[in-house]
């Protein structure tokens, strides 16, 4: 008997998470398996690409088999295989993509190439399938800080982006200087809860009037310099206060610019996306600001904010509805603008 639901299998290996998920009708998560290597990379203070690739290779089969088993789905019942083909670490992306291609070949399934950052945005639509483009998305992660106008399921326009560090990078750096553990985002979040956000004033950087771009290197440097200066004066650094003050400065700018973007784009729907979306202060302040402004705010649950394959499956689901399939020649695209249409890029590469 043919199943009645549309089943999408997603594969994600852009960084240090090996993930496979199965989604029904683009919204019901049947399984969402994530094998994190975070404990392995912590010893190096960051993700080591060669080590990540080695672990992806050994993790792929068990993660894939677990995802099918947990979903109670036979591979025959899968309608398409979605895979994040960029951006990300080249060697890491290679593992998911080569695996996806081989599965597509062996099982005779269509392949859909997915843009990792676009997938982060699509994560919001899993829990809120009532949301449809157009809407605005704030993408905040270790590698990205973007305000995006989502104009269609495959049309993304950059409204603003960071001119220097990504928000997540700044969190990591400040955490390191404060002696907090890797990754820095959750560590700062935790430390800040016991701190006074007004203890140290860090200048909020808004750039030119009306600009939706970000700059976090200034806030980051100010926090780092503050810590060094205090230590030089022989004063003990109050880690919680500095973490709280730095976090408040970064979050203020993110929230203000997100609301500016909404009014510039004429939208009243905001989807928060990316790993930093788990930050509790960002969530709280964004909620308060959106409620006050009458904006419908969608914040995916934490497991859908950090790298996962359910978001990839969701993006693949929407792409196949537009007929956007890839083929077995699919390559990976480690550096990829969020505006870039992966399918066009891939087709161009093949043409010559």
């Amino acid at each position, binding site marked *: 008997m043919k199943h009645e639901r549309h089943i999408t299998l997603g594969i994600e290996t852009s960084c240090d998470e090996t993930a496979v998920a199965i989604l029904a009708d683009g919204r019901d998560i049947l399984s969402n398996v994530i094998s994190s290597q975070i404990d392995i990379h912590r*010893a*190096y203070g960051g993700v*080591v690409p*060669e*080590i990540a*690739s*080695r672990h*992806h*290779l*050994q993790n*792929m*089969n*068990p993660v*894939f*088999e677990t995802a099918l088993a947990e979903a109670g789905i036979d*591979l025959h019942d899968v309608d398409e295989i979605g895979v994040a083909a960029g951006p990300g670490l080249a*060697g890491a992306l*290679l*593992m998911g*993509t*080569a*695996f*996806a*291609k*081989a*599965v*597509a*070949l*062996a*099982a005779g399934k269509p392949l859909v190439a997915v843009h990792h950052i676009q997938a982060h945005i699509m994560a919001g639509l899993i829990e809120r399938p009532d949301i449809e483009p157009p809407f605005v998305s704030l993408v905040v992660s270790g590698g990205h800080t973007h305000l995006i106008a989502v104009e269609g399921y495959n049309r993304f326009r950059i409204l603003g982006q960071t001119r220097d560090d990504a928000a997540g990078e700044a969190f990591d750096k400040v955490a390191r200087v404060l002696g907090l553990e890797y990754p820095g985002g959750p560590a700062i979040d935790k430390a800040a809860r016991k701190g006074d956000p007004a203890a140290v004033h860090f200048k909020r950087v808004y750039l030119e009037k009306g600009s939706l771009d970000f700059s976090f290197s200034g806030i980051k440097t100010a926090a780092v310099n503050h810590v060094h200066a205090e230590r030089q004066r022989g004063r003990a650094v109050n880690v919680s206060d500095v973490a709280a003050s730095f976090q408040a400065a970064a979050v203020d700018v993110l929230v203000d610019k997100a609301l500016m973007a909404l009014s510039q784009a004429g939208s009243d729907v905001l989807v928060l996306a990316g790993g930093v979306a788990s930050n509790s202060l960002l969530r709280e302040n964004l909620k308060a600001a959106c409620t006050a402004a009458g904006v419908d705010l969608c914040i995916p649950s934490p497991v859908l904010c950090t790298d996962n394959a359910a978001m990839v499956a969701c993006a693949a689901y929407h792409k196949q509805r537009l007929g956007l399939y890839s*083929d*077995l*020649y*699919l*390559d*990976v695209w480690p550096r990829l603008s969020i505006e870039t249409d992966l399918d066009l890029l891939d087709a161009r590469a093949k043409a010559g």
Partner: protein
Amino acid sequence: MNADLTNQLQADMPPLTKLLIIETTGPMASVALIDENRHIVERLNDTRYSHLEELAPMIGALMSEHGVEAESIDAVAVSRGPGSFTGIRIGMVTAKALALVWQKPIVEVPSLESFAYHEAFRPGALVVPVLDARRSQIYAGAYRKTEVHEVTEVIGEGAHDPEAFLDLLASRQQEGEVAQFCGDGAGVYAQVLERYAKPFVFVEGAGEVQQAQAAAQLALNLWRSGKAVDAAAASPEYLRVSEAERKRNERCRK
């Protein structure tokens, strides 16, 4: 023999063993099918280092060209390294996915030893594959081809300093033997290898780099001796830890 008896015999015969072989540890990707009679068909990609793009389509094309269905394949064999780390992984992850979906075992084929099985080498040849391991080292081994499809190990695979490896090779090379240097490291380390005191040649053309048809012969031998593993268990042989691990281990020892 009448037609009925022929049909009867064919029905009683076990289906011929067919292995699919993937070789992506070198500069050129290739795939092959080998059967019990050592009949081999192969597809070779002539674009260097385009393994990811080309591999899956090559496998599809090879199988459909020869009318081979997944059901008639007994195992997926894959060159498991040493070689390019990325190349090793593309082949291995592809083999793992195919074997998982088709529910077949995997035969892990050592890439250096398989060089000696290339048809370009005659019985009696001393085959010395040399791969560039960076950091002034080579991945190398030495193998004596005793029969058309039999090879004995003279020096096992390993990461070596080129000079030390040549000393070891000289001590094991027999009278009348000519060391046949092959592999992409032979060119990179040509200046060192040229100083080798015993008879040698640089192999050019067929047999120069890793190729699936050679790996296929070794794969069949391994398969016949029962050396196959589960798809999930199959793993590469890098012969080296990552740079980050090496540096960390050094720091820890200090």
